[in-house]
């Protein structure tokens, strides 16, 4: 046992650990991180810990900590790789605020986490202490000064001889230490060790009994070590009955999109690699063929959407998945799909922009580009899932909308949903979700290819192969017969009919539900991945008696109905978004020139309501604590004004 640990932990004797007799402390949630250099298996340990916790009935949200570079130098802040696991006695919807316990395999990677405010005074760090005796005196010195600095900042650092303990079982502790860490956490959080053994076995199933056995030993060693040496010992009661008959699956948001692609009966995914969207295609690449689908990796983003449009024109269900820069390149083709009324599903996993921006980080910056990116008037449907589960179901909805309304549908997710992992109810696939065989019967004589219904703008679509339906699709302005037309009346009519479809869809939608009271001082409006954080912040504020509620939009084009009426019951309306806005009190900014967040712009223009906004572009998911602080600040200021 190292000297450092002896001094840090109040341990009476190695033979009679104090916590053996102590019952675990019951808590309702904790945030745990495992941080290391990449390649040390932190993510595997964390995902396994998350799965064990989910199986024990906890609500879980995990999110990977991804280094900015592919091969960052070892022991560097930029190389921080790992995972955050938030687990609790309720359904988890977001990554939460500062971590409670962190296991770190070196001290340098912690710097980048501290810089993003991932920790708070009181956060416990279990730190690998092998660097204290590293042959390189510079590393020894770095380690010592970092530990001193962390303590100065209020972090509670315990130095743990993980390497030394693992060396007792394996000559290559770098590869096995993650299971030792898993063992530590399993004891600290009173996890069911039998379940842990099972998960480890599943994880290494392909590698054979020898590897499984070693990893079981490492797991047990970590568990025993924590039992003997670490006083922290918690119990987090389940949110749902452990092993309940409810069937759950665990995915990230991009896997959920992939499942949605399969569940919606897509026959073709046409894509070009782009971060952070591509992992959806990686997931599908392994299994899409099992449901008869094909992934076309096109030569560029334009070809990817052009290929999908061609396939859809020929009656096959097709989609494309991209991120901001890809959406920009697809713009012209999207305009064509709108103009020629080609059904198409476009999933956009948003990242920071403009240009290459923040490729791996979250932003909700593509809303206006999705709605208004094309030259001319290009009405299309835009929807945004608010949860990982919705990522799956919204693709199914998108396909139905695309075909019913003969239009492209954009599904806006983001890097936060894409990388977050959580358990949610397993869907029961239905045959009606999948594509029907295309209609190849003769086209009804005399029916034009755009037989627009005057009221709704809807029209049936001839499919190649239908005799008598032969028409030439064109991106030029055209008549209901798809004949090129440059006259004013035809262009006006085409635009009207395409626009009318959105009104027709709008008239079928229900007003959104308000989270909290339906009246009050402040209504927070959000969209997309921020829902969990916003509602948690609102619940927190409401528990303190503050008159605040929230509302989350899934349909952005058309907007959901009834908003003006819902808004009228609140003194102030505030959007919370992850895209840029000027702060009202910045230099040179006044109400006439202030640039608002993207949803706020739409709401102000559409509803003539003085919607305010609060946002940042930190590249981080919105955290409930930060939102809570802003809400209370505003509510207190309102009280002062009144």
């Amino acid at each position, binding site marked *: 046992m190292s000297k450092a640990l002896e001094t840090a932990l109040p341990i009476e004797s190695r033979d009679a650990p104090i916590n053996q007799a102590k019952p675990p402390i019951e808590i309702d949630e904790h945030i745990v991180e495992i941080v290391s250099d990449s390649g040390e298996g932190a993510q595997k340990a964390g995902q396994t810990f998350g*799965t064990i916790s989910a*199986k024990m009935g906890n609500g879980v949200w995990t999110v990977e900590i991804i280094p900015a570079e592919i091969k960052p130098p070892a022991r560097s802040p930029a190389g921080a790789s790992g995972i955050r696991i938030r687990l609790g006695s309720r359904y988890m919807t977001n990554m939460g605020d500062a971590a409670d316990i962190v296991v770190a395999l070196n001290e340098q990677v912690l710097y980048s986490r501290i810089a993003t405010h991932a920790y708070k005074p009181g956060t416990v760090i279990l730190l690998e202490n092998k660097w204290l005796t590293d042959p390189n005196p510079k590393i020894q010195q770095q380690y010592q000064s970092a530990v001193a600095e962390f303590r100065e900042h209020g972090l509670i650092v315990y130095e743990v001889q993980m390497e030394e303990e693992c060396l007792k079982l394996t000559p290559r502790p770098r590869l096995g230490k993650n299971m030792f860490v898993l063992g530590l956490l399993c004891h600290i959080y009173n996890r069911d060790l039998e379940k842990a053994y099972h998960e480890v076995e599943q994880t290494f199933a392909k590698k054979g009994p020898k590897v499984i056995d070693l990893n079981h030993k490492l797991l047990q060693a970590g568990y025993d070590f924590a039992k003997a040496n670490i006083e922290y010992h918690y119990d987090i009661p389940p949110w749902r009955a452990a092993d309940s008959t409810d*069937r*759950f*699956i*665990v*995915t990230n948001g991009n*896997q959920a999109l992939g*499942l949605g692609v399969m569940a919606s009966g897509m*026959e*073709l995914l046409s894509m070009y690699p782009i971060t952070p969207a591509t992992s959806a295609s990686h997931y599908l690449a392994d*299994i899409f*063929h099992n*449901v*008869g689908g*094909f992934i*076309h990796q*096109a*030569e560029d983003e*334009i*070809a*990817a959407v*052009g*290929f999908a449009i*061609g*396939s859809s*024109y*020929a*009656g*096959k269900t*097709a989609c494309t998945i991209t991120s901001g820069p890809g959406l920009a390149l697809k713009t012209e*083709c999207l305009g*064509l799909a709108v103009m020629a009324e080609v059904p198409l599903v476009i999933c956009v996993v948003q990242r920071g922009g403009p240009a290459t921006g923040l490729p791996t980080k979250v932003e909700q910056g593509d809303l206006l580009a999705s709605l208004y990116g094309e030259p001319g008037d290009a009405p299309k449907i835009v929807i945004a899932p608010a949860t990982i589960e919705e990522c799956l179901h919204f693709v199914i909805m998108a396909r139905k909308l695309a*075909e*019913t309304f003969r239009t492209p549908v954009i599904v806006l997710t983001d890097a936060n949903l894409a990388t977050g992992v959580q358990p949610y109810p*397993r*869907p029961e*696939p239905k*045959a009606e979700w*999948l594509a*029907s*065989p295309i*209609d*190849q*019967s*003769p086209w009804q004589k005399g029916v034009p290819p755009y037989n627009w219904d005057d009221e709704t703008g809807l029209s*049936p679509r001839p499919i*190649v*192969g*239908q*005799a008598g*339906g*032969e*028409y*030439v*699709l*064109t*991106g*030029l302005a055209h008549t209901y017969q798809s*004949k090129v037309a440059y006259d004013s009346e035809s262009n006006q009519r085409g635009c009207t009919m395409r626009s009318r479809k959105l009104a027709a869809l709008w008239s079928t939608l229900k007003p959104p539900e308000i989270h909290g009271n339906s009246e009050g001082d402040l209504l927070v409006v959000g969209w997309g991945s921020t829902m969990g954080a916003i509602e948690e912040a609102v619940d927190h504020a409401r528990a303190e008696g503050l008159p605040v509620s929230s509302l989350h939009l899934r349909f952005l084009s058309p907007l959901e109905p009834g908003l003006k009426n819902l808004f009228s019951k609140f003194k102030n309306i505030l959007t919370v978004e992850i895209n840029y806005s000027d702060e009202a009190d910045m230099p040179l900014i006044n109400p006439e020139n202030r640039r608002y967040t993207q949803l706020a712009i739409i709401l102000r223009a559409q509803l003539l309501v003085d919607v305010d906004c609060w946002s940042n572009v930190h590249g981080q998911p919105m955290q409930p604590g930060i939102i809570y602080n802003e809400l209370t600040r505003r509510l207190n200021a309102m009280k002062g004004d009144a």
Partner: protein
Amino acid sequence: MFGLKADWSLDIKKRYFALGDYAGGEARWCPGCGDHTVLTAIQRICRDKQLPPEKTVCVSGIGCSSRLPHYMGTYGFHGLHGRALPVACGIKSRRPELDIWVATGDGDCYSIGAGHWIHAVRYNMDMTVLVFDNNVYALTKKQTSPTSGLGLKTNTHPEGAILAAHNPLTTTLGISNVSFVAQTIDWNPAHLYETIKAAHEHKGFSLVSILQRCPVYSPDVFQCLQDDPSQVLLLTDEKGITIEKNVARLFPNQQEHDPSNMSKAYDIAAAQPDSIPIGLLYHNPEAPRYEQLSSVGNDMGMEEKLTAFNKALDDLAI
């Protein structure tokens, strides 16, 4: 849902299609434009092969030649500038039974669509791609195109084009998995017809470069070839484009060329613009076709799909 009808299978064997069945709206190209000849050749081939109009799709980009689908009686897709090939490939990907024709031009294919051109050749999907090469952008009233010859005066280069013309034949021949490259001229309908017919019969991506006169913006660029047919090199071979002797007699310059010989094909193509070859430069009927891969799973039944989807869920279950 979505208009599914049970009686979708159709007996088409007893139908006979006349030329008129392949005619759409009245062609609005200028009088004397070479595009008219090409349109007629395509319609004749469709008729001769009795292609069902509803199973035939003409895809195009933007430019004078890209108006062609509007003048056909088949299905058509007149899309965006440069994007005919991705759309055509997408159509073919899951409907390999459809007959695909692509009408594109020197600007549409070799310039703004150049990336797609390279990759579509490599995919080698079964379609007949006709590149109407008039050496200028004509629809937009005479700008320099990639095949404009050095010194050609245009509205973007009033003093004459400052770069030598791009050679699309050598480029195409240089692309992996290329399977059919031919060149023909619009002022010899017999050769044009035979070349397009051979391209259509080829199972794979057949690129036909058609030297096409624009009577308005580049009336002179091919005049010398018409005036002096000896500047044209007629490629002959039993495996190549075969035309009647009295037509072949018009070309004093002829060369036997085995279209399976790639290096010879490249040499012949590289001799442009000094010697303009017409005929089949390269043909490999064995090259793998992308639609053979992309259409796998097309016939999978609902039960099988649902089972596989449930298996995917099982793998994610906790």
